[in-house]
């Protein structure tokens, strides 16, 4: 019952309100035009957005180019300076290393030379040895001539030669001793004919 009343009330109100204003006869044409416009907008929107973005980027790049370039240049300059400083430091370090290496090489060479020098015998000593040896040989030969061959004159000549050639040598002393002994023997021989034969002992012990 109440439902009917409500329905009646609603319908009466609807009747009183009247229908909507008459819909335009060109409604379908208007709708078609709007749809066409919307399609164009849908199609063109991405292009428009892209164009706006590109233009925006262009403007932005133009407006921000100068300061950025200046900043870049400053950065570049500071980097170049740093590179130069680093290069100078590296060069200095390399030079130092080369100097140290050169010193080490020189020191090594010096050591080698010193070792070589140390290995070389003293010529004076060598000469002294040779002189000593020659004097000994002469004395020895003179001893043999005198003792074994009984060539006293030749032996005296040989002793004299040793004394003449190597007056400071110890064999010159020995030669002098031999000569003195020979003189003594000669002297003793003349005095007493039965003296024993002299045997040189110093020459053997010194050899």
């Amino acid at each position, binding site marked *: 019952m109440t439902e009917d009343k409500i*329905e009646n*009330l609603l319908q009466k109100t609807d009747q009183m309100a009247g*229908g909507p*204003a008459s*819909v335009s006869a060109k409604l379908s044409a208007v709708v078609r035009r709007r749809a066409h416009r*919307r399609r164009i907008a849908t199609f063109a929107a991405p292009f428009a957005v892209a164009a706006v973005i590109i233009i925006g980027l262009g403007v932005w790049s133009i407006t921000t180019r100068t300061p950025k370039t200046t900043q870049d240049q400053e950065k570049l300059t500071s980097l170049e300076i740093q590179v130069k400083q680093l290069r100078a430091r590296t060069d200095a370090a390399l030079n130092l290393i080369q100097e140290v290496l050169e010193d080490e090489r020189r020191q090594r060479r010096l050591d080698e030379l010193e070792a070589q020098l140390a290995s070389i015998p003293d010529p004076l000593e060598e000469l002294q040895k040779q002189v000593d040896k020659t004097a000994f040989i002469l004395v020895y030969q003179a001893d043999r001539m005198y003792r074994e061959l009984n060539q006293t004159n030749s032996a005296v000549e040989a002793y004299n030669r040793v004394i003449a050639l190597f007056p400071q040598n110890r064999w010159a002393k020995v030669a002098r001793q031999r000569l003195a002994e020979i003189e003594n023997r000669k002297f003793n021989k003349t005095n007493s004919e039965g003296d024993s034969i002299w045997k040189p002992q110093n020459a053997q012990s010194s050899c």
Partner: protein
Amino acid sequence: MVVMAETITDELLVGQFNRGDESAFDRIVEQHSGDVAALANRLLGWPGDVEDVTQDIFLAAYLGLKRFRCECSLKTWLFTITINKCRSYRYKRILRLRLFAATKASLTRPHAKVKTPTGSETFDRVRRAVAALPAKYREPVVLRYLQELPTDEISQIIGISKNALQVRLTRARRRLRQELAELIKEKL
């Protein structure tokens, strides 16, 4: 029988439109614009001028007609679009009113500025009571009592079951009864 013929006609028109025959759309507009405009007018609280909403509804139909699969009648489909468009239209209008710092009264009475055709108090009260109903109650009421559609079609249009529709109608009636108690008593 009438529904079947209607469905066949709809299918033919949609087929023609899909084949590129634009005149099919003209015929669709011609056939249904009146009903669509009337429904929009009632859903929006009888503002009278519903040209813009009707244009939006048929624009949506024009753009979506190729996807229409004729599972329901074209009228049902158009009414569904109408309901959706009216909902968004009301929502936008409320937002706009809020944006312009409208008074609370104008929010609760969104059609206050609309001229009343008769100026009678009864009409105003009923209109206000219907407008004050939430959309989920107002739509079934309008479709059932003003458009006089069968419940099957209404449930199809709104997209709810018949039971849910009955529940909503009952609740809507209860609210209207409360709002319009004096008027109903006067009638008695």
